[in-house]
């Protein structure tokens, strides 16, 4: 049961252009979404997150957009840099009032982003 889906296993983007990574989810209880970046032989590294009460969150070159009605979120990286080449994971959690603080994250399968110099 794939509650979080990243349908593009890979994406190649020219350096300096915009990278757009997409993620869809099925569980309407999810209320917090995160993007993690992973290099080989390292653990996932937190990039940016968004609460379901927002539709956009920006941090430097990274912007996450959330469309709750479509159950879709996307990560925009602009401008893309060679160091951005990594696997990007979308993740989601469902808090509720009683469960806040227990971050059981459901991950997507990841998208491998390659930035072409």
């Amino acid at each position: 049961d794939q509650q979080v889906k990243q349908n593009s296993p890979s994406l190649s983007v020219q350096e300096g252009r915009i990278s757009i990574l997409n993620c869809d989810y099925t569980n309407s209880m999810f209320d917090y979404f995160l993007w993690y970046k992973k290099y080989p032989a390292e653990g996932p590294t937190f990039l940016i997150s968004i609460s379901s009460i927002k539709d956009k969150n920006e941090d430097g070159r990274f912007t996450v957009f959330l469309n709750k009605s479509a159950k879709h979120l996307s990560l925009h990286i602009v401008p893309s840099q060679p160091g951005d080449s990594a696997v990007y994971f979308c993740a989601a959690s469902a808090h509720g009032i009683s469960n806040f603080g227990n971050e059981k994250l459901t991950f997507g399968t990841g998208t491998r982003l390659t930035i072409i110099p």
Partner: protein
Amino acid sequence: EPEVTQTPSHQVTQMGQEVILRCVPISNHLYFYWYRQILGQKVEFLVSFYNNEISEKSEIFDDQFSVERPDGSNFTLKIRSTKLEDSAMYFCARQGVNSGANVLTFGAGSRLTVL
């Protein structure tokens, strides 16, 4: 200095053997987690550990798995009798503080290979 340190980085074991993976989450946090990633698949939640007790566990976390924090510092994941399908990267994580309480900080992982 890494915020979450995991040992060993890679362990090869025979099927049926016991394995202990260790994690040292620097600084005091109450929530700790184990996740795993089978090669080519998604990162999966195994168990969360709060105040020295299991808070939640997934269906993957069966009787062969156990977690404990024996000395208040190390956080261990034990697999009692390993199976071939236990081969994966195992990630320890702790709850974030500076970056937000909802954010998990992961270690670099321990690669387990079961032969």
